[in-house]
């Protein structure tokens, strides 16, 4: 389905919004395009690293049939914006795009798509890894797993966005 740009409420251009929670299928192409574009006088990036998270067909030894994702959408988008702000503290020239899927997803479908641009590849890879680690920690997004024989809400632990230890752990993984 083609949605005219004016129906999406864009005022500046037809570009993809960088931080989105959506029930539509995800694609990396538009994210790469939007972060690779020169941004208001910034230098053109020399590298874009991407991550696509897919629904696995197995978890904890169970055969997964499908997942249903639920989010507090406005808070999730704010979490994504916060993650980019954290990235820019460490890598000021980095730029992030992050889309997360909602609703029912079958095995093999993409649940999260991330593109991170920066002048050089090392920072792009690190920023991309940092982003997915922080999404797992602080984004208000829940996964309801349906498997052969039952279903379960997957609950771990939410990190306080201000928790320095959690942030440091994500940074350690990003720079490993």
């Amino acid at each position, binding site marked *: 389905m083609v949605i005219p740009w004016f129906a999406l409420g864009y005022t500046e251009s037809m570009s993809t919004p960088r931080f989105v929670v959506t029930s539509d299928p995800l694609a990396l192409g538009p994210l790469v395009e939007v972060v690779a574009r020169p941004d208001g006088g910034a230098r053109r990036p020399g590298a874009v690293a991407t991550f696509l998270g897919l629904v696995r067909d197995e978890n904890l030894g169970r055969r997964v049939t499908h997942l249903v994702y639920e989010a507090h959408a406005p*808070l999730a988008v704010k979490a994504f914006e916060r993650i980019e702000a954290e990235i820019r503290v460490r890598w000021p020239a980095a730029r992030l795009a992050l889309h997360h899927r909602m609703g029912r997803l079958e095995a093999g479908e993409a649940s999260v798509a991330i593109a991170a641009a920066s002048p050089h590849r090392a920072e792009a890879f690190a920023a991309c890894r940092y982003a997915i680690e922080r999404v*797992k920690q602080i*984004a*208000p997004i829940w*996964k309801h797993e349906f498997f052969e024989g039952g279903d379960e*809400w997957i609950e771990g632990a*939410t990190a306080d966005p201000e928790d320095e230890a959690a942030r440091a752990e994500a940074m350690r993984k990003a720079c490993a």
Partner: protein
Amino acid sequence: MRVTIRLFARLRELAGAEELAREAAAGATVGDVWNALAAEFPALAPYGRAVSAAVNDDYAPRRRPIEDGDEVAFLPPVSGGRR
């Protein structure tokens, strides 16, 4: 005063409602709203401190005072990643 409570994921299922309108006393905090909710729906009580809260689409601590018309969301722990 009137508050709108929003529940997500397993909290929503346990309470059987995604949105509730409730009265709160003047000066009530986010924590007071949670305690009243956990008393009304005992199945929610075991979550205790594991639940995060947001007021009007911003994360809020338990001690935050609420105002008439606020929307208070309670959020169970996120999935996180095992690896």
